[in-house]
């Protein structure tokens, strides 16, 4: 790449939300005509940084320079005017309107009296789509388009406004391999045309395939920016993770019995948009073992767990919990012996506005039942008990759950779920948003469960965690289990490859699925 001045420069950006610092001193340069990948783990601050650039969020301090000039955006309109376009991960489209209408919205071509020049709109958007190789029928209704085509509409929205800088947030999250290839071709042609592309991703394969330069973000800082030449996935991953001490929970050998406490067979389920999220999936977890489900978020884990927990109805297939068929409601599953610790703490696992004792009492109401009445004193005492036993910091029974930190909220959930006689424990993203010290405690707890003869099923996007805690590792990719590995016999490299869709040997997919 040339030494031309950067078209976008972010310098020393800082952004906090309350006590939490999302972006600390992040600096990044984007050159003209390059494809720049921004990688980092969950919570590294990538999306926050991009939202700041796009004017959706205001920064606390730091400079933004466009073409050498210092700018300050207070809303997306200003960013758009400066030539920045953003394609969000969750498309912002109006489904019952046409492609042309979605593209021109906000920058409509007008005739007299404020009327929209429909003819010109369709002609211009049509030409634009052809020019960039993103062929689309301007009159098509967006709601009827496939996901890959809808993404094209999003990209065209930015290009229509003469965006010179395109930010793509996890663009391939919902695309098929074919669509992904087409997207990369588009990106390359745009870059060759002088546009600058900045894309956020966590898929190392894509980073290697598509980018010119790579910036790694960790804990709110850009820790490195390197050229994409002679770089391996290991190198990039190393930058993302840094030299952090790997958590290794001290645990003995697993002694799984033959009793299968979770049995999923041939499960097929649809996701929110009607797409097939879980595709004829089968797995089992036995008593006395910890099975970790590794996989990049968005490959069907959420839907899989929702089906098991009784929150989603599968299209076909069967789930058995402790040898009993899946109940119709979460309550039935609880009674069958399931303890489910969800990832969605704010919406599902806790009631943020309610007191901690209330959060701990839900699901156990029968224990505190005395006729028609709730023995509140007993419930509160029990919760105070649990707060001590599980070391929930900063908690008192009456304080609302939202006043706790993420890690302590997690502990509340765990305290609630594990303080009962559950035989199957499902923990979803147990260490998400939890600090190191708490993670250790949580992992130890899970191992205790295993040693006590329970079946533990951990779903995590954190490969570290999976490797550390599992006895057996399953990898989910595109709704199917693509690997079933003994933890002791595998390593991060191998699992990572399966997660990225590389494990060709186990896949029964078309050769289009290339490494």
């Amino acid at each position, binding site marked *: 790449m040339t030494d031309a001045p950067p078209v976008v420069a972010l310098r020393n950006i800082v952004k*906090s*939300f*309350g*006590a*939490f610092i*999302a972006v600390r001193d992040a600096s990044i340069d984007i050159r003209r005509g390059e494809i720049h990948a921004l990688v*980092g*783990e*969950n*919570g*590294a601050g*990538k*999306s*926050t940084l991009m*939202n700041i650039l796009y004017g959706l*969020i*205001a920064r606390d301090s730091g400079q933004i320079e466009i073409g050498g000039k210092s700018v300050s955006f207070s809303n997306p309109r200003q960013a758009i005017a400066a030539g920045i376009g953003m394609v969000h*991960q969750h498309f912002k489209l109006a489904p019952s309107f046409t492609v042309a209408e979605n593209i021109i919205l906000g920058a409509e071509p007008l005739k007299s009296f404020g009327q929209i020049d429909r003819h010109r709109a369709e002609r211009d958007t049509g030409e634009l789509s052809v020019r960039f190789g993103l062929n689309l029928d301007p009159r098509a209704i967006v709601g009827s388009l496939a996901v890959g085509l809808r993404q094209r509409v999003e990209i065209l929205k930015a290009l229509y406004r003469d965006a010179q800088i395109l930010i793509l*947030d996890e663009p391939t*999250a919902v695309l098929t391999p074919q669509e992904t290839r087409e997207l990369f071709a588009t990106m390359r042609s745009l870059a060759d045309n002088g546009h600058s592309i900045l894309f956020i991703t*966590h898929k190392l*394969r894509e980073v290697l395939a598509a980018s010119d330069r790579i910036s790694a973000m960790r804990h709110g800082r850009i820790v490195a920016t390197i050229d994409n030449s002679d770089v391996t*996935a290991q190198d*990039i*991953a*190393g930058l*993302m*993770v840094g030299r952090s001490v*790997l958590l290794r929970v001290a645990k003995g050998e697993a002694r799984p019995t033959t009793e299968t406490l979770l049995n999923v067979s041939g499960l097929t389920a649809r996701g929110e948009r009607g797409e097939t999220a879980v595709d004829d999936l089968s797995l089992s977890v036995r008593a006395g073992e910890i099975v970790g489900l590794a996989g990049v978020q968005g490959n069907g884990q959420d839907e899989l767990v929702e089906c098991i927990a009784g*929150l989603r109805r599968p299209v076909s297939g069967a789930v058995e919990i402790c040898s009993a068929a899946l109940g119709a*409601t*979460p*309550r039935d599953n*609880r009674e069958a012996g399931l303890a489910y610790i969800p990832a969605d703490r*704010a*919406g*599902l*696992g*806790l*009631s*943020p506005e*309610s007191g901690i004792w*209330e959060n701990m009492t*839900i*699901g156990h*109401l029968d224990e505190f039942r005395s006729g*028609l*009445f709730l023995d509140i004193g007993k419930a509160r005492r029990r919760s105070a008990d649990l707060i001590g036993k599980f070391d929930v910091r900063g908690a008192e029974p009456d304080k609302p759950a939202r006043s706790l930190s*993420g890690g302590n909220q997690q502990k509340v959930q765990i305290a609630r779920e594990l303080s009962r006689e559950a035989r199957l424990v499902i923990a979803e993203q147990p260490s998400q*948003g939890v600090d190191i010290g708490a993670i250790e405690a949580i992992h130890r707890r899970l191992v205790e469960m295993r040693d006590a003869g329970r079946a533990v099923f951990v779903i*995590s*996007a*954190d*490969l*570290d965690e999976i490797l550390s805690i599992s006895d057996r590792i399953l990898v989910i990719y595109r709704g199917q289990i693509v690997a079933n590995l003994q933890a002791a016999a595998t*390593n*991060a*490299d191998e699992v*990572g*490859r399966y997660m990225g869709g590389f494990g060709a040997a186990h896949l029964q997919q078309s050769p289009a699925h290339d490494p």
Partner: protein
Amino acid sequence: MTLDSAPVARRRLQWLAWLRPALHPVAAILIATIVGGLLVLALRENPFEVYWFLISGSLVGLPNWLVTLQMMTPLIFTGLAVSISFRAGLWNIGAEGQMLVGALAAGIVGFALPMPGYLHLPAAVLAAFLGGAAWAAIPAVLRVYLNVNELVVCLMMNPIALLLTGFFATHVLKAPGPTNKLPDILPTAALPTFSLYSQVNAGLILALACCALFAVVNARTIRGFEWKIMGLSPRFAYYGGINVPRRAIWVMMLSGAVAGLAGAEQVLGVYGAFYDNFSPGYGFDGIAVAMLANFNPIGVILAAFLFGALNAGSAVLQMMTGLSKYLVQVLQFIMVLVLAAQFSWEWLSKRRPQTMPKYPEQSPAPGEAGEIEEA
């Protein structure tokens, strides 16, 4: 979850936090009083005089007290009904219709089914209870099974109830003569009144008892606890084992049933028969009562008392000044408007709430991949 962008501002406002529950209703009353006062001034009357008439007309002298108690009774029922449902997360704005249906049921049992005294009154009251419940069942079922917004359905069910009950009163079961009412109820079904000064009746006792009952239910029973959690966080409640759909239907029906009791009180205690279009809007006033009471049953008694007093005083006001008694309605709904507004601290600091990722510790991007352990 709420997070401020300014830790300093948050500390400063924290001492207000414990005041917060009372802050909103007090602010509402204050603002309404001030605006009302200005309105009175504009109409060339003396606000202090006006407010004095309202107070004295309701609270000075036994006759006025009795009128206040009479005015307050239906509001306790409807206020309680709305509170029960709102607290559980269901917006029952159909209390007016449910009250009418309950009233009709009581009116019918009252005149058409002669029974010995100790059975007749309870039967009529029970009929009202069931009638209100049945009318509320419709929006409830539509909400749970067909995902139809219960607000709109309730809104439509109100005029439907008015027309249908009116139909009964003017055609099907019309009393003979040039009237628009059902035949008078039999004496065995009547709610005994206490004095000649007003129509306050034993229904008041029932209303207070209901409030006491629900205060206990809300605070101490399993069901009350479940309702509270449902109202705050329905997904969490479902995940926690509460059968939210089923509870929702029953709560709506219970809410409607209590509203029906308001109808029973009016028919069996105040009017002695079902009259077409007898309600000056008690069902909607109930919303005002419930909001002022912050959906708390004991608060309902206080709020109903306030509005009942205002209504009682308004009659005196009308006599003594050139002002219409509708001033009270204006005050009432200014309060509702203020209570409905959600004053967040961000608004006060004139900053637009920032868009934020769902978990502060997590960016919206999905998880990582390909992490390789550093050797």
